[in-house]
């Protein structure tokens, strides 16, 4: 296990998340894909901290900040989704075209 292995795993996880965020029709699916991308970034932070900066913990601290922002993001995202769902009665992204006029 070298740093390259961790970076490859994190890249693949990030790309799976990108693919999901671009292609899922359900908004909850898009939010889940965004969580996968956050996790890929966290793996990278922990791996670089372990391999290149073994005596400090700055990378892990930044990963905890990322985690907090991700939690806030998903809470507000799901609350917004519930509010929109109550008005439009759909959870699919292509049906949200109120601003098109």
């Amino acid at each position, binding site marked *: 296990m070298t*740093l*390259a292995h961790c970076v490859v795993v994190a890249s693949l996880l990030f*790309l799976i998340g990108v693919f999901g965020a671009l292609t899922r029709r359900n908004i909850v699916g898009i*939010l889940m894909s965004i969580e996968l991308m956050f996790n890929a970034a966290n793996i990278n932070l922990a791996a670089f901290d372990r391999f290149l900066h073994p005596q400090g913990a700055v990378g892990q601290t930044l990963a905890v900040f990322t985690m*907090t922002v991700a*939690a806030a993001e998903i809470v507000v995202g799901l609350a917004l989704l519930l509010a929109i769902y109550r008005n439009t009665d759909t959870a699919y992204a292509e049906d949200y075209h109120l601003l098109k006029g």
Partner: protein
Amino acid sequence: MIQTAAFYSLSALVLASALAVVLHRNTVHSSLFLGLSLAGVAGLFALLGADFLFAAQIMVYVSGIAVLVMFAVMLLGRKSDLHLRQVNALWGYALAVCAISAAGLLKVARGFAAAAPAAAPVPSTAAVGRLFLGRYLLPFELVSLLLIAALLGAVFFSHSEPAEGPR
């Protein structure tokens, strides 16, 4: 040796369940696979010697965010969703974007092949706590403010009565 085996099996678990999250037709199953994938990432953190991140991942992601997503899926889901396509028409372009990015990212990753692991990892929770209350005190307080704002925003938006003001 055992570390390598653990790394490969955890990576396979994380990537396979992430693919299931993205591709599964049933959103409830998809959210369950999200929990599995996040738990695998927690295992990777433990393998990398990040003990505090391991605990935080389990507490925040696996038992917080995954359960919250499951609640949302079950509140919003309908039976007819199971027969609908969950992937939009432009998936070919998305696949092309991902393939091109994968080529670039793997080229970048090849540059780090020489970095071998240092000595055995030491517990880092105390160091993380010292950084939180020392060098990163201001971001720490800002993040707590952000959490309060997210809490109030969630209560505001999911309130069943429409609030006053233009709608």
